[in-house]
């Protein structure tokens, strides 16, 4: 895939580098990179990979831009509040480099769609915000043999590595199991320095470009720790674990599993599936665990209102033999409610992903 005169001019500072050259720039143009999440880490990744001339960027996100995102998610601007992150990111990428093809995946990555999405790309950069998706992305990359430029952040600290590359280790070699829910706070609960994902996302972007060009030494087999508060970078050795359940010598995970269950979280159901179940007249109970004033403002008529605080007292109103789907505003309180019902022996409890915020 040869470069146009406009591209030769645009990328001249790249092609001057002997390690890149015109041939390297053509490789970048041919490359297909999947960015999982267009938030804190995905923003700098997308902006710089677009500027660098990566030909195709796949973006996975189903969220909309919120004012609280703007402190760090620099691909989105103030006028984008309320827009789909995919639309906002695609516009920013087109402005930086119209030569880049953006593929929009407006979905939550899950076990049913991950392999089909990841399969079309050469390199994956994982910038998600939760453990189920971290393990899902890892397993999909290992199963398909795609390198994963990994980055993760918390408060003032970040981690980065390259997983599932050649004979190197994967995320499960580093952490065979996720922490139980509630023990490790998320950025939404614990906060994050806005600049931090810029640094960590660009470490991921650097690794992506090196993986495409086949130059330098990647973070394969190394975990980079970044401490912004003390401005220290440290490096730890990572090894492929021969007993790793997914990339080890005798793997037991040979297809994607239910990652919410693996992480001790309730299994999710998409709002569109809930709508379909309602219109089919499926036999299930829909429970809304928000407060009465929230319910009054907007609700799904078929849902039974049981505010989360009153649920323990009202468990007897529920039928264990039926499937139960729980919803709230954003999916957090309903996750707590799902766990409460599971602890009380309800076998089939699902959490409506994204809550009423995702109900259109």
């Amino acid at each position, binding site marked *: 895939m040869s470069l146009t005169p406009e591209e030769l001019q645009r990328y001249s500072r790249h092609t001057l580098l002997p390690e890149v050259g015109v041939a390297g720039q053509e490789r970048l143009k041919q490359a297909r990179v999947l960015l999982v999440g267009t938030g804190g880490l*995905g923003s700098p990744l997308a902006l710089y990979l677009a500027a660098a001339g990566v030909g195709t960027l796949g973006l996975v996100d189903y*969220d909309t831009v919120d004012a609280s995102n703007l402190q760090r998610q620099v691909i989105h601007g103030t006028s984008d509040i309320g827009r789909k992150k995919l639309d906002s990111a695609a516009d920013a990428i087109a402005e930086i480099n119209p030569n880049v093809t953006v593929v929009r995946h407006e979905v939550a990555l899950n076990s049913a769609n991950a392999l089909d999405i990841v399969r079309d790309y050469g390199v994956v950069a994982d910038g*998600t915000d939760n*453990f189920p998706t971290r393990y899902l992305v890892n397993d999909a990359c290992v199963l398909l043999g795609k390198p994963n430029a990994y980055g993760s*952040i918390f408060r003032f600290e970040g981690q980065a590595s390259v997983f599932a590359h050649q004979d190197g280790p994967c995320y499960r070699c580093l952490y065979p199991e996720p*922490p139980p829910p509630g023990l*490790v706070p998320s950025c939404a609960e614990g906060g994050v320095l806005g600049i931090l994902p810029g640094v960590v996302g660009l470490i991921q972007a650097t690794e992506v470009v090196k993986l495409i060009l086949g130059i330098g030494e990647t973070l394969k087999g190394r975990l980079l720790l970044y401490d912004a508060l003390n401005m220290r970078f440290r*490096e730890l*050795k990572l090894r492929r*674990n021969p007993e790793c359940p997914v990339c080890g010598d005798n793997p037991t995970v040979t297809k994607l599993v239910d990652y919410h269950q693996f992480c001790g979280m309730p299994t999710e159901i998409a709002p569109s599936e809930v709508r379909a179940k309602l219109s089919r007249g499926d036999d299930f109970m829909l429970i809304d665990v928000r407060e009465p004033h929230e319910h009054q403002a907007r609700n799904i008529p078929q849902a039974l209102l049981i505010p989360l605080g009153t649920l323990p007292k009202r468990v007897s109103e529920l039928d264990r033999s039926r499937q139960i789907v729980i919803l709230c505003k954003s999916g957090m309180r309903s996750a707590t409610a799902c766990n409460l019902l599971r602890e009380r022996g309800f076998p089939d409890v699902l959490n409506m992903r994204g809550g009423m915020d995702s109900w259109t």
Partner: protein
Amino acid sequence: MPHILIPAPLRQYAGGQSSVEAPGATVAEVLAALTSLHPDLRKHLFSDQGGLRSFVNIYVGDEDIRYLEKEQTAVGASETLTIVPSIAGGAR
């Protein structure tokens, strides 16, 4: 005395400190001393059965103790023990 680096998610259980010194000649001894200084750390490092949690990795220098002598790995007086828990943040 060995030096222990406490990661951000666990600092609130270690009096807000980013590094702590605790005596001991092995990882097990140092962690025992650490958790007696800061008892709130215990449930974040060890499961109810007493083993190290699988989402918490311990390094002596730059080596993962799982590939050394695990909790019996020797720790020199001037060495650094790093606790590296899994963190998932990135998008939202």
